[in-house]
């Protein structure tokens, strides 16, 4: 699905957010990125969803070299990648139905998109998608009236309508409470399992990552520190990942979610 060689992003001002990442993610694979804040996870995701241009390095999505794409070809490549952000995914004043239908924008012509704003089309499909994410009753609610967790569900429903090959989720649960976090991550992994879409997630909560994903990649200072299944990860490896970064992590005001092992995806004993 993804292949990256020496992927690097240096921002103006010389800050090297992502420094030379080599990576392969297969179709249908589920991967979680973990690491302290400032490790370059979000930048990496913005490179992976074709929002940022890498300073150096190459990137292929489903075998296509995407670094030099523009215009219609770039939009076509983006359609294959669904992104869920931490927050602010959605247009607040729009009704839920339109926010979900926005997943179709890549496929629709502008007149079609406009007509749907006047009278929403494919409402049945939207309804099914909302049923799948557990909030079918919110079809015609105004988006800014929903809770944070419900808004993330709407964002997931939009990805369902977009029907991409890979779902990227950048800290999808760091602004919802821990119990909800588990259910939203599980929703994502279930979708990935059922549809065969790849799932690439950035997670703040290490426990959640270890419990729900068969492949964990540790990112620190823009580089991959380890790339391994959760069973083989040692405490020391994890400690090294976050070493000296605790202050930066807590400065975010998002402490690691208290974890309830009973409601995890599939319990993995930590070695």
């Amino acid at each position, binding site marked *: 699905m993804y292949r990256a060689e020496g992927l690097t992003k240096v921002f103006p001002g010389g800050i090297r957010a992502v420094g030379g990442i080599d990576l392969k993610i297969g179709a249908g694979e589920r991967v979680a990125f973990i690491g302290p804040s400032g490790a370059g996870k979000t930048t990496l995701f913005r490179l992976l969803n074709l929002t940022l241009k890498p300073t150096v390095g190459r990137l292929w999505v489903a075998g296509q070299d995407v670094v030099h794409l523009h215009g219609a070809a770039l939009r076509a490549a983006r359609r294959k990648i669904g992104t869920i952000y931490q*927050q602010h*995914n959605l247009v607040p004043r729009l009704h839920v139905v339109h926010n979900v239908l*926005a997943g179709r924008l890549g496929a629709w012509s502008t007149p079609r998109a406009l007509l749907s704003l006047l009278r929403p089309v494919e409402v049945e499909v939207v309804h099914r998608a909302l049923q799948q994410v557990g909030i079918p009753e919110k079809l015609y609610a105004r988006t800014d009236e929903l809770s944070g967790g419900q808004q993330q569900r709407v964002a997931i429903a939009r990805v369902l309508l977009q029907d991409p090959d890979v779902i990227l989720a950048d800290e999808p649960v760091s602004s919802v409470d821990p119990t909800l976090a588990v259910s939203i991550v599980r929703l994502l992994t279930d979708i990935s399992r059922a549809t065969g879409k790849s799932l690439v997630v950035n997670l703040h909560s290490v426990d959640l990552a270890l419990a729900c994903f068969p492949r964990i990649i540790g990112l620190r200072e823009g580089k991959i520190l380890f790339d391994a299944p959760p069973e083989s990860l040692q405490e020391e490896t994890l400690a090294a990942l976050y070493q000296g970064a605790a202050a930066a992590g807590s400065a975010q005001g998002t402490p690691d979610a208290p974890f309830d092992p009973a409601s995890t995806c599939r319990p993995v004993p930590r070695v």
Partner: protein
Amino acid sequence: MPPSTPPPPAVPFLASRPSRFTRGFLLLFGLTTAASWWAARVDLSTLFSREALRNALFFAAEGFPPALSPEFLLFLVRPALETVQISLLGTVVALLTGLPLGVLATASLAHAGPLHELDLSGRPVRRLLRFLPYGLSRALLSLFRSVPELVWALVFVRATGLGPFPGVLAIGVAYGGILGKVYSEILEAVDVRPLEALQATGASRWGVFWYGMVPQAFPHLVSYTLYRWECAIRASAILGFVGAGGIGQQIEISMRMFNFGEVVTLVGILVLMVAGTDALSLRLRRRVL
């Protein structure tokens, strides 16, 4: 919480440059104000001198009692309606000019900002092609609004003859320039994060515009347009002075006849009309917000 646009490069840039810019700007502003005070010969003693006050009072006293005879009031129905028509049609023309130009003049939609990061980086020709309509519409808007509506009215009175039509055109062009500029600023000010999310689905710029920008900006666009309509009522009164019809023309005629009682009545009607649009726009704004 990490914002979607990585802040590190922006921080040092923002912290150092604007503060110097702001200081320079404030200094210049202060100096200009002081110089203007002197250059415009602001002398409050002339305003509050005994003679000035007596003249002003005399002028005001001339206006009382206001002319309220039924036949005069009845006669005013037509010019009053004409003023409403001029302002309304003028605002519609301004909307039709300002909206397309304002959308084209929106930098975040045309060529700048995160929506174009990957699409335009390293493609100077493409960037230039995107910049051209943007720059052109900005120049047009700037031309439209830098010429005052009174001057536009004089031009159009020459072209089309006396009457309400040149007034409509004058307001349409001058206010089109103002509306377009403000529309572009409103559109640029919307939260960019939902726009990025839309763009990441593969949406085109127009898809992002209709689904992301317009819904966020809509109440502000409506609100500002209604405010401009209110301004247009006042402006159409002024335009009457140069022969563009309406209440303004009546004010000018009554002034010339030294019939200040009629002038007071006419100004009163103008105040009522502005208050009326204000009340109407308040109700409309409540509905769209």
